């Protein structure tokens, strides 16, 4: 049998994982890409204005995590069984880890996009797809988490 403490732990850790890991993913995405953007942008300002998309998309990951975290907090009162607590924990985990992976991808792709487009500006429109698809991973996590939360 699961005691009350374990149930509470599962509930609150779901929020912590969702918000914490998403914020970490966003941080990685922003810091990795923004260094290259700043360097290339200091030489070619147009590179910075175009590549800011990587920073915006990385920041969106933290917002996804926050949305899931807030919804979980709102649902706290109705989580009264192990099944529901596990559902909340899974929702938090999915959101957190997908945002983290997405942030790593955005950071890495965003950095390469900034460097590549600084050298050859014409490739930006083609390579930006990489950053957008990395962001989609976080979006999948958000949708899955929301569907799980709706079932609580």
């Amino acid at each position, binding site marked *: 049998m699961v005691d009350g403490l374990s149930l509470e732990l599962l509930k609150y850790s779901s929020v912590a994982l969702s918000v914490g890991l998403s914020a970490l993913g966003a941080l990685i995405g922003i810091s990795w890409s923004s*260094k290259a953007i*700043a*360097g290339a942008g*200091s030489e070619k300002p147009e590179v910075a204005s175009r590549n800011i998309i990587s920073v915006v998309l990385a920041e969106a990951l933290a917002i996804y995590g926050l949305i899931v975290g807030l919804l979980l907090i709102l649902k706290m009162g109705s989580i009264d069984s192990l099944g529901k607590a596990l559902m909340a924990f899974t929702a938090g985990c999915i959101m957190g880890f997908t945002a983290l992976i997405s942030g790593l991808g955005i950071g890495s792709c965003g950095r390469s996009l900034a*460097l590549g487009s*600084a050298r*050859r500006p014409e490739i930006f429109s083609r390579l930006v797809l990489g950053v957008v698809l990395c962001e989609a991973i976080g979006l999948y996590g958000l949708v899955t988490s929301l569907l799980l939360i709706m079932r609580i």
Partner: protein
Amino acid sequence: MRLSTSYFLNGIVYARLPTLLSRDSFETLILTKDVEDFLSRLTSNPFYYDLKVSDPKDPLLFEKRLMTILMNEFGELSKYDRKMREVMEYYLLPYRARNLGLLTSSKPMGLTWGEVSRLIIPDPFTGIDFYETLYSLSLESILAYLEGKVLRGALEALKVFESTRDPTVLEAIVMKLSYEERINYFAKLRGGGAEALLDCLLLEADVINILTIYKGKVMGISNDVIALNVIKAGYLYPTVILKVLEYRSPREVMDYFLSTEYGFLFEGISEAFEVALRARNRLNKLLYLKIGTILLDPSSPLLPLAYLKLREIEVESVRRIYHFKRLGLKGEKLREVIPL
């Protein structure tokens, strides 16, 4: 010693790469009518904008401005990262050594500070005051300072000078020591293109040694003096160097290296005066290809140095085109002395 990547710096470098002169740009420069036409086309590239000199036919002013542009680039790319500054300082040691060699040899030649300062290459890490202070010291003090700071073995130059009384020996030894010190430093670096860069430096040392021996034989210099100029680094075994030193004529030296992997330096060259220009150009072509591989890796910590190495080769080519144009020589010959 492993370097960490600065993506900020790599971003700057990638943004500056398009300003490197392309093959087409070089073709345009080769086909220019005269020195004025050459300079007007060259200065349309933002990197060379400062070359808009008042008298385009003054070679000293042109050289000084060209070196200032190159050194400013080194200085600018080293100011963002402390470790990169150290790497650049070691990379630029031969340039500094050229200045220091000039200072040391100026003492026995009796040159004034005014004369020496005109010939000093701008140093991005130390101002001209540093050289002026050194100039005020005695020859022995300058060499003792170098021995303690950067160039181990600099005091040996004094012994050689005392026996030969030849001021150029001082310059040559200081220069040689700087190459050795630079290679020693880069041999300690690991990862991120450091191996490729070291390969280039070792190759460069070999070619310098081969050309030193060849030129020594052409000029009839004794083996002892040539040996003093040989850099104690590179892929060539010391036994090979000793063997080649024993050859009497430059033709024998050339024939020996033609049968080795360094044969590409001498292939199709028959005149001794062509060797220095064309062999150096062939080396530059090879270095360009090797360094190009570092530029393909955006995560390489040595990306700024790879870019600057290409810039250095480019500046050398620009200088050659300028002198060809200034002297009114044919453009066709130029293609053999610049790495297109």
